[in-house]
């Protein structure tokens, strides 16, 4: 493998990294009127780990397939550096790809699988043997060269698929839900491995997933897809803490939602009257001066018990359930006809009694008011 070049290693550095791939007004339709991808612009920066996140049918996989060359855009152009990709067949693009079902060749040994891209490129036998060995070492499977794919576990197969996609040293690697078929523990382990390969090899990775936790933990930047458009493109922290619209706010991470009407609006601050009759002060994200609004609050930002003292808005509800999660407690509160969830770190929370009355609230900057029309796909 190539030694990492002088590449940015922290997400903040990517703001200035050069662009590697550009999607320019890309649209894709199969039947002429329903658009899978609509007039989409996207810049992928050199060396970044970019995740395309969204529900199924949101267009994220179609975008990945268009970049790989397995789908053709109906209009628009994808640029790889200065090269337009529309007339370039997949096998000439030099882009590595990892598939969800691994797609290892069942009639070839592991070594033959990894040697395949090198043979295709006409490398000599000695060079191939050397690179195959190094690739197997890289994914920490040095002993399995002579086995067949069906003799390996799912996690091992996916590591071989990674080795095969990286052995010819592509600068850009696409991953289509590569960990979707693995169990939770293995998935978390592989997330870490992919992430460290990305950093040590200086790869540019475009990663497709519908798992928002995976997206948050692995990515430098995340593009949230819905209905064939990118709803927000941001680094994980900005995406989680400052979602641009109600859809992103509810799709990424857990959330409580209070529907209501705007009472007043003053700059970034709005007062919303909820359906239950409470007035909440909230940060106005994409709402106007009047009309309906959806206030969205993360469970970990809901304060309960003594922590509500000094809060501007306090709501009274009843404890319905307390669920122990080890590191935190989830308190389910019935209030205003809603199920409100509050997450409390176990170490500093006394478990409230089920059935008891409870007061809860949140800081107004943790309550974000969205246009309810833009919370759906």
């Amino acid at each position, binding site marked *: 493998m190539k030694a990492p070049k002088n590449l940015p290693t922290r997400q903040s550095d990517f703001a200035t990294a050069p662009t590697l791939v550009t999607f320019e007004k890309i649209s894709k339709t199969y039947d002429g009127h329903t658009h899978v991808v609509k007039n989409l612009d996207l810049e992928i920066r050199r060396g970044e780990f970019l995740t395309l996140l969204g529900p199924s049918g949101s267009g994220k996989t179609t975008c990945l397939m268009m970049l790989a060359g*397995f789908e053709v855009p109906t209009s628009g152009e994808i640029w790889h550096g200065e090269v337009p990709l529309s007339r370039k067949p*997949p*096998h000439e693009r030099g882009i590595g*790809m990892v598939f969800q079902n691994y*797609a290892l*060749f*069942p*009639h070839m040994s592991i070594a033959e699988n990894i040697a395949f891209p090198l043979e295709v490129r006409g490398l000599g036998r000695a060079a191939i043997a050397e690179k195959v060995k190094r690739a197997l070492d890289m994914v920490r499977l040095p002993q399995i060269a002579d086995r067949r794919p*069906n003799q390996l576990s799912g996690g091992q197969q996916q590591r071989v698929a990674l080795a095969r996609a990286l052995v010819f040293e592509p600068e850009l690697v696409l991953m289509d839900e590569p960990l979707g078929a693995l169990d939770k523990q293995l998935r978390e382990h592989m997330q870490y491995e992919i992430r460290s390969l990305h950093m040590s090899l200086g790869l540019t990775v475009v990663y497709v997933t519908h798992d928002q936790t995976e997206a948050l933990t692995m990515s430098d930047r995340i593009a949230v897809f819905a209905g064939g458009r990118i709803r927000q493109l941001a680094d994980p922290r900005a995406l989680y803490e400052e979602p641009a619209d109600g859809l992103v706010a509810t799709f990424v991470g857990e959330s409580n939602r209070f529907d209501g009407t705007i009472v007043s609006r003053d700059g970034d601050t709005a007062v919303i009257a909820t359906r239950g009759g409470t007035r909440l002060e909230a940060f106005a994200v994409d709402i106007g001066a009047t009309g309906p609004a959806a206030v969205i609050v993360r469970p970990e930002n809901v304060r309960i018990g003594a922590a509500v003292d000094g809060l501007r808005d306090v709501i009274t509800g009843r404890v319905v359930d307390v669920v122990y999660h080890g590191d935190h407690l989830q308190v389910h509160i019935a209030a205003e006809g809603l199920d409100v969830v509050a997450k409390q770190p176990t170490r500093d929370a006394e478990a409230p009694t089920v059935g008891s009355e409870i007061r809860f609230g949140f800081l107004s900057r943790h309550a974000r008011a969205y246009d309810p029309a833009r919370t759906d796909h």
Partner: protein
Amino acid sequence: MSHNSMPLTTSERLSGRLLAAVAVATAIFLVAPILAIVPLAFSDGEFLVYPIRGYSLKWMEAFFSSEKWAMAVKNSFFIGSLSAALATVLGTMAAIGLSRTDFLGKNVLTGFVLSPLVVPIVIYAVGLYFFFAPLGLTQSYTGIVLAHAALGAPFVVVTVSASLSGFDHNLMRAAASLGASPLLAFRRVMLPLVLPGVVTGALFAFAASFDEVVTVLFLAAPEQRTIPREMFSGLRESLSPIIAAASAVMIVIAVLLLAAVELLKRRAQRMRATA
């Protein structure tokens, strides 16, 4: 291997026996006519008739020493191999094309490709005769090979399609992403995995040509006569037991072909189980 170790009820046992009886009767119905000809090959009489009074190998000897029959055997294998090869190439390509995702007219095209299986062969042969005559393809090996290739291709389409139905098309995408051109990906990835289907189809195509007589009747000159064609004229002209000898030889070849197909099927199942 017993999947079901539950004790059977009386009615289940009864219906099981009935099923076995029907199966045996059907097998006899199918195989008996074929076997009926075999003893006649070893008759020492002069005519193709039962009862057999004495046994000898003279008709077998006559078959293997006759120049006419040797020519027929050679023609059968020559035409069979060439037409099977052609049918295999065309049929495999058609099966791959038809295995792609849906396209307009796919069903019509599939029916068209498989039509030689259902069109009455006499009509096909007459049509071929009028089609080939102005092209100078009647009374030629080329004409017969083309005719038989068209008859054999549907078998290849069917067997290769069956192999492709279990084929993961992501493998072709993976091969492309690794830098393999479509042709190379086909040769290194798809072909090895569907090979059992391809070879089975080739054997069926060979068998289809090997026992075909109608198009040969219309298209063959005397020097292109195949075994079935020679048997056909033998039946009209002499009715000698040499026809039975020829039949016996053809049955042996057919059994060998079937055994080969069965072996391939097992191999394919093993590959599928490990894939």
